[in-house]
Every structure is written in structure tokens, then in C-alpha cells.
């Protein structure tokens, strides 16, 4: 186990170095000189050189990259280009809780709705319940998240109109409220984005749960359990579900990958000031230090999620030994 963890950790380091290198080289070769953009139109040579030194841009590229990597380990992402003298960490600190909150709810809904729907479909296999459920899930899985988000907005706006315009329910279609607060207005803000955010994962999990449950229900030990005269509830939840859970846990990395991709669109369309939105804004502003920081953050999140699913795999299924 320790050996496996060490190996995976080295793999993680490799990915982080790869990701930082790609973003660093991109920033270095990007068009436009950030220092001239920062200084505006009127500046003299001394100011230019001084500011270039503050950002460490007068050093050769490998020294810059080395400094950057070294600072990374102390969570020092440098200074923002766009907002002078503001540390990148400051900017991220505003968005991180919001994105984490969005992600947590998205993941929770994925499990809490997706898995029961899959179990339902497996137990009622090949009935109209199963067919309808799976068709809906196929459609939800196929339709991109930004279409869902936009459709949700159109629906909410339409709902406002039918309930009487200004006197209607006035459900907000953009914004987030306060992070980790759950007053009535906050819930109004958060409900639609969170649901849309989770839909793709829900559909994925529902389909996967149905497949694995059907497979497990065909096994001999389930037949034995039924033959012993156990109640159906016990057979399903104690004998079948536990074994069906194994493949579900291993794909948690994929579910998190879904969420990272979805976050960009959800935060953009619902105008939520999270990490993904900050990334896109920084791309427009050419604020490379911020871009580099968010990229590393998201890549590390995905790698950690994959690592987590590997570890969970060995915990839920003791027969599997990590190589």
C-alpha cells in the first residue's frame, strides 16, 4: 500500500510539473508584454525595468520557471497582472469556497439521486418504468451541460412570467448568494445551478448502477439468498447492492472530471463567481499568474480524485491488491 501510494504520488508530481510547464510556456510565448499593459500608455524606461523586476520577468525563463515551482510549494502563486499588487491567492480565496460548495452539492446529488434511480431501474428491469427511466437518463447524459443550464434559465424566466411578472415568484436566474449560507434567498440562488450541475453525473451513475446491479442480481449468491427465504429487501440491499457498489466507487474520478468540466459552463452561464469563472475572466484579461494557479488547482483536483478512487477501490474490495 505504501509503495503504491508513493508511486502514485510520484505520478502526481509528474502531472503537476507537466501542467505547470505547459501553462508556463504558454504564458511566456503569449502575445503582448504584460508589463507594458500594466503600465498603461505613459511610462519611462526606469519604471518599466522596475516593474519587470517586481514580477521577476527580467530573469531567464528557466529561472522564472524554477522560482514559480518553488513558490508553488508554499502556495505563493505570485501577483496578479490585472489587479496590481493583489496576490493571486487573494483572488482565489474568494472563488474557492463557492466552487467547493457547488462541487460538493453536485457530487452529493449525483450519488443520492443517480444510484437509487439505477437500483429502481434494475429491479424493474424491462418494464415501462425501466425503459422510461433509461431513455430519460440517456437523453440527460447526451445533452451538454450548457444547454441544460440555458434551458433551466429559460424555464425560470417563463415561470416568472406565468406567475405574474413583477408580482410573480421572481426566481433569480444568476448569481450565487453567500457561500455556505442556506437562507431562503440563498437556496433560491443555488437550487437551479446545483441541479443542472449534477444532471450529467446523475445520468451517468443511474446507467452504470443499473448495469452493475443487473449483473450482480444474476449471481449465484443472490439466488442462494433468495432460496434461503430472505426478504427481498435484505437480498437487494445487503447482498446485491454492496457488491454492485464496487464499480461505482471506482468511477468517482470520472464523476469529478464531469464536475470540473461542468463548472466552467455553470459558473459562466449562471454568473457564479467561482474558480472556473475566475479562470475564464483571467483568460480574457491575460492575467497569467491567475490562469496558472487555477489550472494547477483544477488539474491537482482531478488527479487527487483519481487517486482517491484507487484507494477506495482497495478498501471496498479487499480481494483487489494494489500493484
Amino acid at each position, binding site marked *: 500500500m505504501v509503495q503504491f501510494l508513493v508511486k502514485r504520488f510520484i505520478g502526481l508530481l509528474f502531472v503537476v510539473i507537466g*501542467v505547470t510547464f505547459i501553462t508556463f510556456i504558454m504564458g511566456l510565448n*503569449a*502575445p503582448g508584454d504584460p508589463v507594458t499593459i500594466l503600465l498603461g500608455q505613459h511610462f519611462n524606461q526606469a519604471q518599466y525595468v522596475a516593474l519587470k523586476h517586481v514580477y521577476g520577468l527580467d530573469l531567464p525563463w528557466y529561472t522564472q520557471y524554477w522560482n514559480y515551482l518553488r513558490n508553488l510549494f508554499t502556495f505563493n502563486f505570485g501577483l496578479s497582472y490585472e489587479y496590481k499588487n493583489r496576490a493571486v491567492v487573494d483572488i482565489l480565496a474568494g472563488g474557492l469556497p463557492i466552487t467547493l460548495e457547488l462541487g460538493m452539492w453536485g457530487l452529493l446529488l449525483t450519488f443520492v439521486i443517480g444510484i437509487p434511480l439505477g437500483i429502481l431501474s434494475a429491479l424493474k428491469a424491462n418494464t415501462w418504468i425501466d425503459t422510461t427511466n433509461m431513455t430519460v437518463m440517456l437523453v440527460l447524459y447526451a445533452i*451538454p451541460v450548457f*444547454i441544460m443550464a440555458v434551458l433551466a434559465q*429559460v424555464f425560470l424566466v417563463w415561470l416568472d412570467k406565468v406567475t405574474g411578472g413583477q408580482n410573480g415568484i421572481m426566481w433569480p436566474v444568476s448569481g450565487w448568494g453567500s457561500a455556505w449560507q442556506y437562507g431562503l434567498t440563498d437556496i433560491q440562488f443555488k437550487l437551479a445551478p446545483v441541479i443542472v450541475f449534477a444532471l450529467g453525473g446523475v445520468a451517468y451513475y443511474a446507467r452504470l448502477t443499473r448495469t452493475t446491479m443487473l449483473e450482480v442480481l444474476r449471481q449465484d449468491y443472490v439466488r442462494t439468498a433468495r432460496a434461503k427465504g430472505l426478504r427481498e429487501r435484505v437480498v437487494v440491499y445487503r447482498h446485491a447492492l454492496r457488491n454492485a457498489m464496487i464499480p461505482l466507487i471506482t468511477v468517482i474520478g*470520472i464523476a469529478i472530471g464531469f464536475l470540473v*468540466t461542468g463548472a466552467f*459552463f455553470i459558473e459562466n*452561464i449562471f454568473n457564479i463567481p467561482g474558480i472556473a469563472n475566475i479562470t475564464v475572466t483571467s483568460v480574457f484579461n491575460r492575467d497569467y499568474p491567475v490562469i496558472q494557479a487555477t489550472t494547477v488547482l483544477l488539474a491537482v483536483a482531478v488527479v487527487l480524485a483519481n487517486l482517491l478512487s484507487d484507494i477506495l477501490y482497495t478498501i471496498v474490495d479487499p480481494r483487489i491488491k494494489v500493484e
Partner: protein
Amino acid sequence: MDIRKDQGREYAQGAMMSPNPEPEMITMDEAVGIPMPGGPTKRPVSPLQESLGRLRRDTRAMISIGVLAFLVLVALIGPSIYTHIGAPFVSSVTNQSIGPQDYHGYTHEELENQDQGPSAMYWLGTDNLGRDELARLMQGLLVSLFVAVFVEIFDITLGLLVGVLAGYYGGIIDQFLARFTDLMLAFPGLLLIILVAGIFGPSADTAFAHIPILGANGNARLLLVGIVIAVTAWPLMARVVRGQTLQLKEQQFVEAARTSGTTNTRIIMRHIIPNLFSVVIIVATLDISVTIISEAGISVLGLGVQPPGSSIGLMISEAQNYISTHPWEELLPCIALIIIVLCFSFIGDGVRDAFDPRSKD
């Protein structure tokens, strides 16, 4: 984007198909190829013909193919027909007579005809700048088609080349592929596309501006976006091809070819690549859909096609401010994209069942 990863894992986790999928049962029209004693003999059917036959019997997939073929036709020849239909009208702003070749163009802004519903003059209405929605939609379809074809050429060529070489020879190219795919799987594909499109987009605008059709009307970034999507797409193709090649090269017919002195190049060209046809077509179908969604998504974020150009994603993002007053303008591109995506998903299912019958549960 993650559909791709997910499928990649399914393949990587050993759901590998047999190189020559045999049908589970032979139907009458497939059995006619088997020579009967005394009876009339027909030419035997090749595995490809068998697969196509199975695909032809899949009604849902065939309808989807029909719908997509119609959309491709609309994108290719629709604009040239549409610009010749309609009566000229006199604009009250300039007092000039304007013909359909102008107001049915996708960049023409007709200020007195903003936000109109469908009518005889504008078949699908106009947007907030008075541009014809049908013309913009057709241009958007053309953009999707271009990106899909462009990425697929790149994807199949590079994926097949690297995948076969890595699978057949192993060694350093295999190591490179493994490391590269690891990196690409960890680095969210969308993030890379956003970064490259955002940072180098403005340079692409100027660099490609002189290319006749591609450089005009804000389409210049398409090429850039296409290249990045292709870069994120090919590792999966390569990985699947590699896995399949690993299996194929242990097969007896390859061994036989090698024993009889066939060169490696010839084995790869004559024995390995033809047998990869079904995996490649399955992964490619999946990738096309992912590609179209990626391009639309990038344009939704405002990093893809620039105004006054048109793309389904750009139409979605432009109409976003008017959903309370003119939801139709938002729904139209959404419906178009949903139709495309569902068609591809049905075709993907059909193609997988037809070319790899064992994958059916």
C-alpha cells in the same frame, strides 16, 4: 468531453473487442453467402458488409443518419438557395431596396426588423440585431461540420499512427504515449482548449485573416480551436488502437504472415490496420459528437467564433441576455444542438452494436 474519457476507460479496462467480431446469430440474408450443395452460390459477405447490414436494420440509427444527412445538406447548399428566395423590400432607414441576397445573409443587420418571429420573409425570425436566424443557424451548422471533419482527420491519422506503432513495436513510443495520455487525462481537456483559445485567439485572428473564407467574419479562431480539440482527442484513439493492436499481433494470421517472411511494414498495412476498422469507426463516431459539443461550448464562453460570425454556441451566448423577452432566439440553437447530439448518440449506439456485437448486454 468526459464521455470520451469514460469510454476510454471502458476500453482500457478490458472491454476489448475481439478483432473479428462474429455475429451472434446468422440471419437468412447473411446466410445466403454460405454455399449450399447443389444450390446457387453467392459471393460470401465480408465482415464489413455484415456490420453494415446490421447497422441498416437499426431503425433508430438509420433515422438519425437521415436527419444528419439532411442537416449537412442544409449547411452546404442551404445558404445559396435561401439567399435567392424572398421579395426585395425597401428599408425605411436608408430608402434603398434590399434583396434576399443581403437580408438572408448571416451577417446582415436589418435594424428595423429586430427580434421578429418566424415569418415568410424570415423563416425562423431574426435576432436582436436584425440578423436572419435561419441564415445564422445554417452558418452555425457549417461551422460544426467543418470542425467535426477537421478534427476527425487529425484524430484518426495521428491516433492510428501512434497507436499502431506503440502497440506493434512497444518501446519508447509506447512510453511516450502512456505518459502523454496520463497527462491529457489529468489535464481537463476543456481547460486546455480554453487556455489556448483565449491566449492565442487574438493572434489567430490576425494570422489567419488573409485566408479567404476561414479568415473572414470572425471564423479565424476555428482553426485554432479545431487544432486544440484534436490535440485533446487523439490520445484516446491512440490508446484504443494500441490495445487492439496488442491483441491483433498475437493472432495466428499475423504469426503466419511473419513466418512466411512478410515485413513489419507490410504486416501493419495489410493485416493490422484493416482489422482496426471497427474500433476506429466506433471511437470516431463518439469523438465527432464530443468535438461538436466542445466547439459549441467554447463559443458559449465567448472564446470560439467571434461576431459577426456565427456558430451554434455563439448564437446561444448572444441570445442569453434576451431570454426574458425573446426566449425563441435562445431555444432555436439549443434545439438544433440537441438534435445533432441525440442523433450522434443514437448512431454511436447503433455503430457499436453493429461493429462489435459482443458489447451488447
